[in-house]
């Protein structure tokens, strides 16, 4: 068989053009991401020379004193670092969850909100703000709200046996999401317009301005707990894009795999939303863009989504905090930046779809 294979490979190589080194695109992506992160550290409302930045980093790594003022140290380590780390983590998490959902629901126009996790987290958070609870409790409520919403949707969908299971999940998600959205609107009406409503509005639009290192320390492990199963199962996700019976015939326990991926994606998304509020568009656009760049195979699509999502969110956040005199909410910017870029990618000639 080896000779047959060798001949076949030679034959096919003769017909297909050779692909460039497999690691090259990833190296380029890595370098771009590093450049975005460095730029994010260097830019901001607080004037900071690149030399000072370098000194701060060197001093931290060697343990020596950096000679910078406490204010500069505060800005670099307490304000910019948590923001950039959170941006990378949340962007990567939302993009990975979006990619997983798009594969599971066999639809490239699906976002992680489809099962209602954002609506549930939003309701938990605005309820906490309305009741005047401490911010840590508000975040916990957001996380629990997101999990409960998806749990309800999955539970309800499990009771219905008649139609295609994927369709039932989507419809149940839409219904539960609408219900929770109505709850959010109700609380917006009841909230105090001068003190609570701005907080609620900004929370619903998403932003990284209130992220501290303590928040990250609590949320990061949870997000990683969700990302790790998705990363490990990334090749198997390809099989979920087939009809359920086909996938089962190929040896996959479809229900279990889907449940596991929904749980992992929900954990990641709920943790992300509790940290930063609702940032839309990343879970929808980034996997789609990644698919246009590396193809639909999840073994490549998931890492690409992680890199692209993290980089995109950090870049957008840098813009949000430097473009205007006040902080612009991220949800607005991700839409304003993501949509034209997406249109551009669709318009250029590329792989056939």
């Amino acid at each position, binding site marked *: 068989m080896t000779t047959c294979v060798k001949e076949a490979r030679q034959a096919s190589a003769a017909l297909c053009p050779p692909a460039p080194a497999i690691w090259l695109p990833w190296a380029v992506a890595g370098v771009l991401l590093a450049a975005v992160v460095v730029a994010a550290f260097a830019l901001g*409302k607080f004037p900071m020379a690149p030399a000072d930045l370098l000194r701060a980093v060197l001093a931290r790594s060697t343990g020596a004193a950096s000679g910078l003022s406490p204010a500069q140290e*505060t800005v670099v*380590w307490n304000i910019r670092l948590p923001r950039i780390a959170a941006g990378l983590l949340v962007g990567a998490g939302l993009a990975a969850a979006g990619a997983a959902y798009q594969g599971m629901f066999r639809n490239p126009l699906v976002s992680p909100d489809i099962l209602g996790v954002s609506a549930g987290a939003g309701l938990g958070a605005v309820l906490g703000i309305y009741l005047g609870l401490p911010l840590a409790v508000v975040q916990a409520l957001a996380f629990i709200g997101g999990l409960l919403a998806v749990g309800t949707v999955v539970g309800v969908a499990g009771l219905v046996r008649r139609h295609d299971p994927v369709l039932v999940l989507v419809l149940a998600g839409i219904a539960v999401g609408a219900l929770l959205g109505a709850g959010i609107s109700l609380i917006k009406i009841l909230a105090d317009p001068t003190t609570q409503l701005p907080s609620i509005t900004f929370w619903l639009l998403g932003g990284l301005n209130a992220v501290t290192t303590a928040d990250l320390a609590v949320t990061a492990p949870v997000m990683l707990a969700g990302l790790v199963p998705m990363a490990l199962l990334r090749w198997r996700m390809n099989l979920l894009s087939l009809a359920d019976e086909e996938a089962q015939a190929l040896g996959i326990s479809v229900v279990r795999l889907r449940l596991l991926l929904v749980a992992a994606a929900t954990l990641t998304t709920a943790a992300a939303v509790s940290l930063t509020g609702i940032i839309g568009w990343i879970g929808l656009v980034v996997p789609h863009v990644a698919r246009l760049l590396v193809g639909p195979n999840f073994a490549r699509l998931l890492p690409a989504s992680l890199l692209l999502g993290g980089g995109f969110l950090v870049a957008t956040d840098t813009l949000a905090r430097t473009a205007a005199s006040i902080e612009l909410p991220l949800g607005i910017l991700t839409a304003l930046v993501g949509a034209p870029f997406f249109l551009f990618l669709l318009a250029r000639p590329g792989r056939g779809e």
Partner: protein
Amino acid sequence: MKRRHWLQSGLPWLAAAWWGVPAWAGPTGSTIAARFGKLPPPERVRRVFAAGAPAGVLLAALAPDKLVGWPLQLSDAARGLLGAPLQGLPFVGRLAGRGSTVPMETLVQLQPDLILDSGTADATCISAARRVTEQTGLPCVLVHGRLADHAAQLREVGQLLGVAERGERLAAYADATLALAAQVRASVALAERPRVYFGRSADGLETGLEGSINLELLDFAAGSNVTAAAGKGSLTRVSLEQILGWDPEVIVTQDPAFARRALSDPLWQSLTAVRKRRVHCAPSMPFGWLDGPPGVNRLIGVHWLVQLLHPAHPAVRALEPLPVAVQRFYRLFYGADLSPKAVAALLEGAA
């Protein structure tokens, strides 16, 4: 909940700042709700950041040269009614947890010695203040800001900022005003208090329920908020039906458009207040007399409203005339010298 701060461990000065000094809640009777971080001694406080509009007004009155910037946008007309250092202060944005408009880095760049917040001090505000201190190392102080607290507030914050003498002067004024209101309240029984409706938006249908800090002036000035029947709460929207049902005797507002509308709109004609032409618009320059923000700016509003509701009361009759009182207040609190013409324009432009 104990939090572990990974990165701060490498910065000893920050560590000493707040690991050594836990959150401090004031003793009962104090207006200071909480403070975080290491406060500098009063004589060394040179720059103060106002987290919200009520704190901005408080600082403008107490220590105008220490205020770093305005947390609210002020029109040119408003700035014209303020004293010299306050007129030119830039807008910097508010600090309100998630609803902040001031970027954190700008806050650090401004390097205030202290951040002051006034108003409702619920758990959300307190935890937000703690976070700011943890993240930036700047000390935060939260003070209660209800009307009854204003005298104590002025005294305590004055001491914190090293302007105790000025704080005492302002507090004396506040004391006098509060005493006046208390006197009127004591002598007018609940049932005899005029029923007042405070309309807030341009259509007048936004108002406040009992307990709302924005409307406490009404009860304070021995009026009776008509919305009391609708329960407790904060700001809310009501329907014209409800207002017709309550049938207030007096309508007050800060929006001249609403005042005109209430007097001319046929739907409002049947109200007692409209029939008796007892629809009054309070001035709102540079800050509202009744609300907007709910801070020490309301002290002159107390005077105004008490005169409006109980003109025949002996304590009220003994007061100085309103224009004189306005001049005194603006000079004392805002550092602005208003000519009698300006005062008249202020009172008229509203009425």
